[in-house]
């Protein structure tokens, strides 16, 4: 298991409290300024404020690496992973679009 995956997964486990009526998901942001991928753990109880906690920053700014990392992460957790800042980009291996629609807050 790569170091990045280990950090992301272990922190997710700590934060994923499985409280009822609460959504949990992982947000992956493309940060072109820092040339990094930033991981966040988001949770939101129905009708409440969204809470977003930083998980990790992946400094290896390479989509191939990210694709592999996400694939491994998906093996370990079934939490939804949302991508932001990847509009028009495709995964190098599968050639699928990473992010279907541009977020209105982007």
């Amino acid at each position, binding site marked *: 298991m790569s170091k990045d995956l280990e950090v992301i997964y272990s922190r997710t486990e700590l934060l994923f409290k499985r409280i009822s009526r609460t959504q949990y998901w992982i947000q992956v942001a493309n*940060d072109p300024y820092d040339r990094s991928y930033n991981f966040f753990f988001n949770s939101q109880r129905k009708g409440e404020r969204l809470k977003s*906690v930083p998980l990790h920053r992946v400094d290896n700014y390479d989509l191939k690496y990210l694709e592999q990392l996400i694939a491994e992460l998906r093996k370990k957790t079934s939490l939804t992973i949302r991508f932001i800042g990847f509009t028009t980009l495709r995964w190098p291996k599968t050639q699928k679009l990473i992010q279907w629609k541009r977020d209105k807050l982007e």
Partner: protein
Amino acid sequence: MFIDDEPRGVFFLIDNKSFYASCEAIQRGYNPLKVPLVVLSEARNTNGGLILATSPEAKRLFHLTANVSRKRDLPRDPRLQVVPPRMNLYIQRNVQINNIFTRFAAEDDVWPYSIDESILDMTHSWRLFGNSPREVARLIQKTVRQELGLYTTVGIGDNPVQAKIALDVYAKHMHDLIDEIHYETISEKIWTINELTEVWGIGKRTAKHLRRLKIHNMYELAHTNPYLLKQKMGVIGTQLFATAWGVDRSRLSYKPITKSASIGNSQVLPRDYQKQIEIETVIKEIGEQVAARLRHHNKLTKCLSLDIGFSYAATDEDGRDGFHHALSIDPTNNDHEITRQLLFLFRKNWEGQAVRNIAVYSSRLIANTGQQLDLFSSLDRQAKNEKLSYVIDEIHKRFGFTKLVYATSLTKGGTAIERAKLVGGHNGGNSYE
């Protein structure tokens, strides 16, 4: 005209729009102006949570004010995003921004004013970058936005105070986030300000004081008798009068000579401390921190002061809100000696009140030129004790503060370990690496 003799240059005051909130928005891939987001510190002594920053959109949607407010004032709305602070990230961004500024002005002409504000003396360099100061300001804004994603607001003036007022009062409301004040436009830009507290240097108390003198807006301040103002408010009165005329004779490169430096630390406790042992644990921890800083600066202190603030309930009972005492001591920067004197001060004055604030200051500092030995203990011991503190400092420096602490810091009252993670009282962002 009087302004012919006043110093005149081209000054930019640049600040970042909702700095912390914008940094966090960009990290998450959002546009800082579009996302409703607040940065909330939940350090243990914030009594629930403290809002450090609010994005422009959150201010607009929920009518939140820019000032630091409490978590309980936040609306429960699913659109709002709440994020923890990462002070180290903001410090890093501040450095990056100032590095960009040094491309537009000499390094000696860039003056960081706060974590998100800088003063730029563009007098000598603006012509290199455009046909007007405004054009150069636009270019700086674009560069920062392009390289860091942050939006900046620029106030332009003939001196720093004009730039500051242009920034605070006008620039943030302008479409391009830029505005200018010059000596020629003082009457239309400064005298028309009706709310005194909007002006740099005038807070609620000063505004109240001015109202008592029948001064209600900047026009009245500029047209009052300056001698009367000085008589009533002292030298600050003169300064306010100068501000009203947009006069600022400060030389940024002038370094004021500190007459008496002091080193100290203070903290608000996470809850009311009742037990003597718990309070003393924290006093010791702060004392050791102050001693370590003294050693770092290679100084000895000749005067220690202890400031204790009572809890609200204890204040009601006692009538005082705390006590403050100082003590002259033999020059030292030794942990043991400093904590001993502090505990002496505490025990002498404390009568069982619940405590919420603790501050320790060391003043009348002198250079550490050598150890003063005393006749009443063995020489060897004294020399070794002196060395011990430096060894501990070295270990802290090399391995981190929390790797070597007194066992008392692990007891219930201790705060040192928890606080070692903080930067400026808030989460430094250690959760990040």
